[in-house]
């Protein structure tokens, strides 16, 4: 079940179909064939240089990147997938950054906004904000749930469209957690009044590394809350399978997508992610093939 507010917000958004997460390889692909996708997911943080809190002109946009958004406006809808909210930080707030995101909502009309269930900002012993160098996972504890849910509720008021939280990729195994990951995510949906961005490749990566049953995870998850799904590829690195977005989506991830399609009534879109450094190997044909695969699954379950 979803809250009335979130249900109403979602009711106003039609099912989109298949999208792609923007990277420097995307403009060329979409300018050649705008019909390749039904929407574009963008990470706003990648479109500007952030000179940090206290700077006069803090956010300086990268014109070569925003030129593409100007081209795409009116052709394709946008959804936002930020990386800077650091939802899980014990102590962190950056109102100017949130306002910048809200400004971009007004400017580009994002249909929803998502960020990650992790943290990247941490306060150093001397009181300064430090960057963690990566998205650091959170233990699934009551204390953490209360904190993240409160932050998500506050953010919901700042953005005009639904807010989603993405399940994280986790290479660590925190002992003695209060709850399982599906219990935590379900609790977050309830307390935070948010939806879920279900990253099936993150789930696959975690299940493969920590040897658990991804299907059992999905059975325990409130799939009504899933608004967007991410699919991607990965690779072996440093002794584990990693979520490196290294090209084609592995077969088990497509199977997980098939599995959830009949049980995700609020799903609006499937987004394919790849890192542009792998584009030379994947090629335009490879991207088209992955998007076509996602579209075939989408159509089988959504198009009558």
């Amino acid at each position: 079940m979803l809250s009335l507010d979130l249900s109403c917000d979602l009711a106003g958004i039609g099912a989109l179909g298949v999208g792609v997460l923007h990277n420097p390889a995307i403009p060329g692909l979409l300018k050649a064939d705008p019909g390749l996708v039904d929407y574009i997911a963008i990470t706003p943080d990648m479109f500007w240089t952030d000179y940090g809190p206290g700077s006069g002109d803090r956010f300086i946009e990268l014109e070569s990147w925003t030129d593409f958004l100007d081209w795409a406006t009116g052709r394709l809808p946008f959804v936002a997938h930020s990386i800077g909210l650091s939802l899980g930080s014990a102590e962190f707030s950056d109102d100017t950054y949130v306002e910048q995101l809200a400004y971009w909502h007004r400017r580009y009309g994002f249909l929803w906004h998502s960020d990650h269930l992790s943290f990247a900002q941490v306060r150093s012993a001397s009181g300064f904000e430090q960057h963690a160098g990566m998205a650091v996972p959170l233990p699934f504890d009551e204390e953490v749930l209360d904190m993240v849910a409160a932050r998500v509720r506050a953010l919901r008021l700042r953005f005009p469209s639904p807010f989603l939280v993405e399940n994280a990729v986790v290479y660590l195994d925190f002992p003695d957690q209060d709850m399982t990951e599906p219990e935590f995510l379900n609790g977050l949906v309830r307390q935070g009044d948010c939806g879920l961005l279900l990253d099936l490749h993150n789930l696959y990566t975690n299940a493969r590394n920590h040897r658990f049953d991804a299907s059992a995870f999905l059975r325990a998850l409130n799939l009504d809350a899933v608004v967007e799904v991410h699919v991607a590829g990965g690779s072996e690195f440093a002794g584990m399978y990693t979520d490196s977005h290294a090209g084609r989506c592995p077969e088990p991830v497509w199977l997980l997508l098939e599995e959830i399609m009949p049980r995700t009534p609020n799903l609006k879109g499937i987004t394919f992610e790849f890192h542009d450094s792998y584009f030379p190997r994947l090629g335009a044909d490879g991207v088209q093939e992955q998007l076509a695969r996602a579209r075939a699954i989408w159509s089988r379950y959504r198009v009558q």
Partner: protein
Amino acid sequence: MSLTSFQRALCDLIASPRLCLALRANPDATLAPYELSARERKRLTTLVWQRGMSTNCTLYRSNRITPIYTLLNYTCLALGSQFGILIDQFWEVKDYRDGQFKSEVERFGIFLRQRIANGVIVSPFVGELLDFELARNELEFTPRKQVLRTIAHLGPPKADTPCRLHPLARLVRFRHDPRVVLSAAADGIMPPLDLPVTEVLVVLSVMDGALTVMQLAGATLFRSDNAASALMAWPAPQFAPALADAGLLVPFTATDGAPSATVHVV
């Protein structure tokens, strides 16, 4: 406070394989600076034995090296075997406040310039390649259209008009033939160490959109951080014909403020 401290400890461990090893060997002493609950302490002492912690440490290093290697590729190449030692020293500073590529690269640039000044850097090509790549990055991150709008009202300077360098251009002084050094770097190699020393001024510009690099004819100008002369800080076209001819001078206006670098005419 406990969760804050736990997160700080976890991040410190991810950033330092050495700290992970210390925690394995001596948990009490290693965790003494952190205010942790018993459960958090137990978690951290468990995590440092997990394969996933090694993965995180490697991912951290990979994430931090990516902007430097991407945006200072020639500099890294010129550093050669010194790169590994220097990057470890750079990370020891623990001044990583954001994940921004530009600021990370600029911090590393400041760090390297200190090492160059101290005579630590072996390769004679590091300084000029660093200056070149920092200038190129600065231009590529500059909002070109916005800058062009702000200077659109300025007409062409007269011969005696005080000027400044066009905001979409940078000057870089090479101490070796830039064609030899840059083409070798593009091929992934370094020129021979006995390449003749010569002063050459190179202009980088994004005035027309794409980055252009050109060598100014003759060593008539050089860039200096010593802003000793007001006249030289704002050179008129008659004193800097090479820059003026290349369209690289724009009239100085009162809002320009102090020069960040002075153009000297010799």
